[in-house]
């Protein structure tokens, strides 16, 4: 037993040395990228990591004369691990910025650390509206669910849909989406019926049957992107598409990463979101092409673009501050605007949340592959929740 103890002590020391060894070089700026790389949300982590690495590969690893080092950590999707990793990165590796954060609790857990240690936290994926309020050091480059949802409600109301059923996964973001949609849609005189599905739920049939019974004009759906495909299949299998129920929702269900494999069941789904791999711009074409090339043909999705823009924001911020982190970096990020693969975006100086175009898209077949094809644009959308608060 003693031997085991000694062995493990030696192991710990070795690990420590390995980590602290690299911390010596002077002129490096370190970015801690904390992502779920294993577990059910691993694909989120992969997309963001791939995008971040692509960005560094394209723009080089030197900014303002300083070397940029990216440290990727796997938090397994567990919030207390995220927090510990963030703390270790801050304390031991002296990172200038932390970034990543695949899910809402994972983004919220290290928020107090960001405040305490004055380390900017760039949220590249998590989408609950309140996240940026948890610390003045949080900046977001993904989106907020209400931001993607409220335009959906507007579009639905304008296009003659009267009665909509909502079906969301029973957890934070799902409930957010449900609330945002319901509020916006009823405000425009629509009728809404709410359904919630447990997060771990392999079979949607009882819920879809309820929808079939209710006979709405459209079904608004939000489920985490991995489950979206099953949902679509079961939706079609039940014949709901043929009975004239439109499928609408924020873009998570028609995630670009999976869309092409979903097959014809996805055709015709109408979603609103900030990014489609099909977005028609030179920046996006270059991005998609480079991303696919670097990742064995994998198509970038909205997570990837969040990671790519997050890196851009960090790079540009560091350029402004000459490599300085902390409050100066956050201040530099505020109000910054640029043209992203998704279109024009900017960081709202008040809320530190992203302001971006939201596109209304329809799934169509294009050159043999399925894409979310954009057909309407709602420019410069702010997070409606925070916008409502400030008014």
């Amino acid at each position: 037993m003693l031997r085991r103890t000694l062995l493990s002590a030696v192991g710990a020391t070795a690990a420590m040395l390995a980590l602290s060894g690299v911390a010596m070089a002077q002129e490096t700026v370190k970015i801690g990228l904390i992502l779920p790389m294993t577990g059910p949300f691993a694909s989120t982590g992969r997309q963001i990591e791939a995008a971040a690495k692509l960005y560094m590969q394209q723009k080089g690893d030197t900014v303002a004369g300083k070397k940029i080092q990216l440290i990727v950590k796997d938090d397994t999707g567990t919030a207390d691990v995220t927090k510990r990793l963030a703390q270790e990165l801050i304390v031991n590796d002296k990172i200038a910025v932390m970034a990543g954060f695949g899910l809402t609790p994972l983004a919220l857990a290290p928020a107090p650390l960001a405040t305490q240690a004055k380390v900017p936290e760039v949220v590249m994926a998590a989408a609950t509206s309140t996240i940026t309020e948890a610390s003045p050091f949080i900046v977001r480059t993904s989106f907020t669910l209400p931001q993607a949802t409220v335009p959906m409600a507007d579009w639905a109301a304008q296009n003659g849909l009267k009665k909509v059923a909502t079906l969301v996964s029973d957890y934070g973001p799902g409930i957010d989406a449900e609330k945002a949609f319901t509020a916006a849609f009823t405000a425009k005189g629509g009728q809404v019926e709410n359904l919630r599905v447990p997060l771990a739920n392999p079979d949607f049939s009882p819920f879809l049957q309820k929808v079939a019974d209710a006979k709405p004009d459209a079904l608004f759906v939000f489920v985490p992107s991995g489950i979206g495909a099953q949902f679509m299949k079961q939706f079609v299998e039940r014949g709901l598409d043929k009975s004239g129920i439109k499928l609408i929702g924020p873009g998570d269900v028609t995630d670009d990463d999976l869309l092409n494999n979903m097959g014809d069941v996805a055709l015709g789904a109408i979603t609103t979101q900030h990014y489609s791999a099909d977005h028609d711009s030179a920046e996006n074409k270059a991005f998609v092409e480079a991303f696919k090339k670097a990742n064995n043909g994998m198509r970038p999705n909205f997570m990837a673009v969040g990671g790519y823009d997050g890196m851009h924001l960090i790079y540009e911020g560091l350029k402004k501050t000459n490599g300085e982190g902390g409050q100066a970096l956050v201040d530099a990020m505020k109000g910054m605007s640029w043209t992203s693969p998704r279109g024009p975006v900017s960081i709202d100086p008040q809320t530190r949340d992203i302001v971006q175009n939201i596109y209304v898209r329809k799934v169509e077949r294009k050159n043999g592959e399925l894409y979310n094809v954009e057909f309407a644009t709602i420019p410069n959308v702010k997070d409606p929740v925070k916008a409502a608060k400030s008014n």
Partner: protein
Amino acid sequence: MQSTTAETVRTGLSRRGRWGLGEIAFWLVAAATLFFLPERHLILNEIAIIGLFALSLDLILGYAGIVSLGHAAFFGLGAYVAGILAKNGITDPLAGLVVAAIASAILGFVTSFLVLRGSDLTKLMVTLGVALVLGELANQMSWLTGGADGLQGISMGPILGLFEFDIFGTVAYAYSLVVTFVLFVLARRIVVSPFGLSLRSIRDNPLRARAVGIPVNRRLVAVYTLAAAYAGVAGGLLAQTTQFVSLDVLAFHRSADVMLVLVIGGVGYLYGGLIGAVVFKVLQDVLSAWTPQYWQFWIGLILVLLVLAGRERLTDKARFAVKRFFGRFKAQRTDAMPTTSAREI
């Protein structure tokens, strides 16, 4: 003759109660890390907490033979109780731990009656079910628990009104280590007591244990409740030192991980959980730094090899090594004093 037998009996019965050199060394090393590994205090804090959690599983698995795949139920409840208390203004850490322990103990007591019957498999599934139901409850009661967003806004007061938690995790680690140590000493005391001996006898042979007059079910209820309280404290420590609670404190992988930790360290000698926690966490840290995506493969491989090599045999070997180590020490001592003992007789 009479007195030598009596001596054998006395030493034989209290041997387990005595602290060995290796044990003292273990805790000295642990204490030394407080000063010598300052940049590792965060992971050490996690190790201490998982170690305590695994220790609590050892109490029921190693000493009473109850298998559980739902031990996270108690861990998670403790975490939420401590977190919710702190969020609502009761920020004293120790008070929080006590309440967390009591809450988990109550849950342990109530659910213990579910695991008295049935095969190992039944017990695995019932404990698992309890944890799943609790996890779902926590998700549904988001007004209290924060649901899937996690419980935010926990701010802890200083420990004993003196020590504020710092960003380096030093106070947190010291706090967790001290709590773990105190509870370890208590557990160690309990397992060498007549009560602890009766638990081991139940694990070995419940039929005979009954025939010796041991109220088997009552003892099992007692130890299950105790282990639940321990797990609750571990959960409370996690909530207080990370100042955040999310649904995954109740998740299945918590229960599975703690089982792995305990098994890696070895079941049934209390140190298994602690050693397992060190090995598991360091391995996970090193492996996941090396290959963030695929580190689970290696953990899996280690587990498979461990079982194939004969998990219990390895633990026995470790125990034997410890024994031999002490044996040598004791033998030296007795060798040194043969004249005195001869004269006494």
